[in-house]
């Protein structure tokens, strides 16, 4: 049993080496497939951080009447942050609001002059709220419907921003969904191409398989070496795609970061390099062995 196993492996490795050209073409196809699948994974990471960025830009502000005291507002805030949907709630006092307004419009003389002519600060204090997910703003707004808040709240800008928020929510959702579909389709294509390449290499050996069977080889003895070869393709292809990906990301990642701040693909890659490599090897070996198994079946049946 062990001897048979060793013989099958040895035979697979020898035939892998002797069919150098066939092996290298199969390996390059498979490297491309694995590279494709890994890049798609990385693109998915990018998409996630992109949508997270977008969602981070969404917020709502609750404006309080000028006569609402700071304590009342802060009490409301304490109750608010108890909601699980709320990620953050920043209190902006009337003074801060004025300061921000002045900073923002310091070049606009007319606005500044008219502001100076007012005796008091016309800007209201507000709570700047961010939700965990874009779809949760509705329920957060609902929180302020309570009787006790109606006296102190002037307006909530959600109602004005509602359309924009809904739009953004649906955009980020579609980006995620489309990304997933593209990932699945391309991964499927990569699998098909690899399968076909391996099928071709086995097709070129179909006479050999028949001869093996005629000489009295059992099914496993005949197909074993081809499966070993397929697995070898997978391992080598995984190593190659890792070595291709590393410098590629090292070069590309800073450029991506400059477009999409807050994403560092190269860092992500380095931090997860072992997991990624394991996934690649797993994908490679799985693709190689399963393709070989499926492709060889019909030639075994014929003999």
């Amino acid at each position, binding site marked *: 049993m062990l*001897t*048979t196993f060793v*013989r099958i492996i040895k035979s697979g490795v*020898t*035939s892998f080496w*002797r*069919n150098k050209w066939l092996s290298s073409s199969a390996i390059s196809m498979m490297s491309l497939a694995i590279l494709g699948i890994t890049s798609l994974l990385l693109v998915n990471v990018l998409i996630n951080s992109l949508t997270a960025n977008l969602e981070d830009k969404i917020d709502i502000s609750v404006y309080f009447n000028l006569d609402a005291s700071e304590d009342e507002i802060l009490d409301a805030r304490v109750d608010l942050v108890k909601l699980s949907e709320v990620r953050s709630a920043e209190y902006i006092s009337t003074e801060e609001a004025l300061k921000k307004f002045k900073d923002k419009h310091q070049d606009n003389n007319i606005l500044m002059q008219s502001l100076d002519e007012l005796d008091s600060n016309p800007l209201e204090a507000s709570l700047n709220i961010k939700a965990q997910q874009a779809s949760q703003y509705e329920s957060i707004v609902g929180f302020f419907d309570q009787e006790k808040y109606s006296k102190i709240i002037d307006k909530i800008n959600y109602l004005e921003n509602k359309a924009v928020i809904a739009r953004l929510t649906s955009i980020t959702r579609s980006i995620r969904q489309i990304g997933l579909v593209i990932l699945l389709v391309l991964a499927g294509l990569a699998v098909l191409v690899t399968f076909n390449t391996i099928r071709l290499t086995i097709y070129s050996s179909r*006479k*050999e398989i*028949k*001869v*093996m*069977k*005629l*000489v*009295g*080889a*059992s099914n496993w*003895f005949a197909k074993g070496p081809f499966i070993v070869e397929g697995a070898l393709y997978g391992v080598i292809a995984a190593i190659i795609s890792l070595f291709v990906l590393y410098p590629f990301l090292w070069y590309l990642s800073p450029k991506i970061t400059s477009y999409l701040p807050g994403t560092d693909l190269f860092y992500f890659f380095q931090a997860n390099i072992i997991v990624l490599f394991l996934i690649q090897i797993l994908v490679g070996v799985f693709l190689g062995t399963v393709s070989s198994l499926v492709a060889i079946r019909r030639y075994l049946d014929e*003999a």
Partner: protein
Amino acid sequence: MIYFKKVSKAYPPNCLALNNINLTINDEEFVSIAGRSGAGKSTLIKLLIREELPSKGQVLWGDQDIGKLHNRDIPFWRRQIGMIFQDFRLLPNKTAYENIAFAMEVGGCTKVDIEKDVPQLLKLVSLINKENNFPHQLSGGEQQRVAIARALAHRPKVLVADEPTGNLDLLNTWEIIKLLMKINELKTIVILSTHDKDVINGIDRRVITLENGKIIKDDPKGKYILF
């Protein structure tokens, strides 16, 4: 002993390759099967090595019905038979030595046995100095000799040769035939299928002549008959 009992083989849609064949081949016999292309020689051999199943009748080895063998037992049966073909059918990616060793490996022979037997077999077919050549580096006659050595590797009880000299010149043809006769002297049944008149006339052994799927002549010291 090999028996063919009322064996017929039909291929769809309407080709009757063998028609009610009755045949006994004794131990240690050298049998030539003669006949034109399409007479049914190859079909007879395919039934024997269980590459095909008979449509009717039985093929027996002793009292074992070859047609009733379980799929997983077919490899064991094939290891009892050595096969030689017109187109040699060597494994192109293995050297002469490895081709012979492969036949022993599939039978589960030990490394020691393989290292002892393969050189002896190569010597038997006079190829000891070409053991590391790949098939494409050998002549037709040499390739057929490797094939014979491979067929003998698991010490078969029957050696079946399907037109083994069809691709060879006169000199190589006789070398192969002499080798087959030598193997027969070592008490192995040899079944030689051929349409070569000179070969059959030169052997002077039992000749079975097939025509349109039927045995038309079974002669213990036969000659090739022209029709």
